[in-house]
């Protein structure tokens, strides 16, 4: 672990699925050759197979003995082969090659029967883990975790394109660049952070769903949401990497009857949320509901004030 740790909280309840974060990241860092297919930050519709396709089935992370596991290596088609538009055939243009997958390919597909359909968006940058599996798997000593802020970086000088990091990361957040023969990944916008500016995905978020700061900053929103109010939980804690991106899980819309009357239960199966965020998600949702009720009664809820505040970062 590093001496200090930058962390992010993403409030899924407020995510519009607009991909402004993805595009902010893409515009800032991913305009070079070989980066066409990459979205260091992606937003996928859940339930769904995600980006890359079926990443949760590919393995990686640490086993019960703390040994790093090498998972599968996704191909470009699992992310989505980048396409070009056939502009010469205006006005009837088509993408070439014919797309078969891409970031958020299953947009708004969801599950359930009308009128009780459900889905939510899951934004996913690199988790800048306390125990990065990418770092553990790299035989080149090319990946390091910065002492001063815990940001995990791939040294482009040392990387030789072996792709063990891609295989070991259970979140599939290192990306291999076929042009440079090196792996690359989200850098938590460290050149911005070093100047006191939050990462582009945080600053540009239209829904203001992202919070950012040092985990030991007790006055910051990240500390409050994760440690004080305990309403932000990591994605797939069972992978063993101790992520530093936390999620405020989605409060389910109520199921409705044939006449549109609320039926009390939520549409999103609790078991599904537990499969993503672990068993503590149940307590988190209870806390959120209690605090929302308190705010609706006109009482002061510091938790709700934190969640709706525009004081979203301290770096």
């Amino acid at each position: 672990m590093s001496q200090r740790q930058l962390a992010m909280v993403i409030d899924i309840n407020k995510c519009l699925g607009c991909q402004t974060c993805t595009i902010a990241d893409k515009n800032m860092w991913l305009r070079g050759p070989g980066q066409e297919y990459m979205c260091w930050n992606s937003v996928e519709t859940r339930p769904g197979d995600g980006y890359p396709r079926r990443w949760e089935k590919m393995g990686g992370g640490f086993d019960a003995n703390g040994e790093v596991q090498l998972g599968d290596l996704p191909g470009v088609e699992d992310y989505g082969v980048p396409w070009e538009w056939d502009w010469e055939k205006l006005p009837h243009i088509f993408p070439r090659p014919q797309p078969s997958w891409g970031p958020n390919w299953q947009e708004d597909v969801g599950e359930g029967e009308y009128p009780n359909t459900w889905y939510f968006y899951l934004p996913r940058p690199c988790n800048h883990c306390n125990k990065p599996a990418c770092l553990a798997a790299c035989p080149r000593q090319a990946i390091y975790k910065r002492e001063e802020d815990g940001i995990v970086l791939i040294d482009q000088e040392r990387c030789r394109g072996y792709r063990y990091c891609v295989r070991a990361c259970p979140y599939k957040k290192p990306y291999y660049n076929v042009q440079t023969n090196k792996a690359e990944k989200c850098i938590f916008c460290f050149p911005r952070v070093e100047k006191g500016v939050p990462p582009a995905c945080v600053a540009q978020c239209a829904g203001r769903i992202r919070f950012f700061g040092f985990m030991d900053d007790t006055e910051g929103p990240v500390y409050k949401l994760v440690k004080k109010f305990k309403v932000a939980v990591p994605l797939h804690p069972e992978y063993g990497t101790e992520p530093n991106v936390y999620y405020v899980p989605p409060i389910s819309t109520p199921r409705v009857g044939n006449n549109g009357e609320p039926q009390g239960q939520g549409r999103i199966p609790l078991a599904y949320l537990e499969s993503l965020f672990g068993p503590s998600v149940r307590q988190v949702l209870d806390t959120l509901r209690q605090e929302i009720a308190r705010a609706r009664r006109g009482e002061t809820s510091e938790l709700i004030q934190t969640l709706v505040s525009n004081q979203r970062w301290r770096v």
Partner: protein
Amino acid sequence: MSRRAIIIIIVVLAAAVTLSYLWLGHTGPTQAARADILPVPAVAGGEDPLAPAAAVWGGITPIQVPLSGMDIKGEWPVAITTSLEVQALRRGDWLYWRVSWADTTADSRIQDITQFADAVAVQVPVEAAQRPYICMGQGTGPVNIIYWRADTNQAESLVGGAYGTLSRYPLVEAKGQGSYQNGRWTVVLARALGQDPAWQVPQASIAFAVWNGADEQRGGRKSTSNWLTLDLRAGGQVTASRNEVASRPVARSHIPRRWR
């Protein structure tokens, strides 16, 4: 002649052709003898030996070097390259090696995340009088690796002092060029000797490694040889004895600090 006799003759002829084909395939087009010493004859003038098909290589006897699988990530190579053939020569201030090995696929382009390129490397000690640890050397005995990869068809000069330390080594120039024909790679690797005082020796250690891209071989997942002896005396250009070299102070300023 009866019809039956004709059929028997045809079958016998077919069997003979098949057997002779298999026999030739088994022995291979070149029949290098296995040896632990690789002589380095000196060559003056003529065409650049960097071209794998350069005529000069035709006059140099190859040796056969056995290889075995190696790995440091717990995933042993499946498609082990069992041997390679190597020739060496010295021309001016450069050492050349022509390395040839069988590979059923030429993996010379990386167009997808799942593709890996074929590659070959020559490993020699930074200081020729040493025989460091065979696997990437050690801190007190670094190795110089001339690494060629099929997708770039270029050689890199690298230095290593333990697992995971491999770095670029601008102090030694390297060249490489390869071609794939009839199921074999033939690659010429070259290392500049220049005025390198650490390489004015009669003999030096040398080792080889081959990566089969189709088997996702890269890094530690590869086929490697043991140390062999590179015999530099054939050129008659030896200017210092082993003892003189060993007593010379070692300059390591070019070795990365983290493992110096």
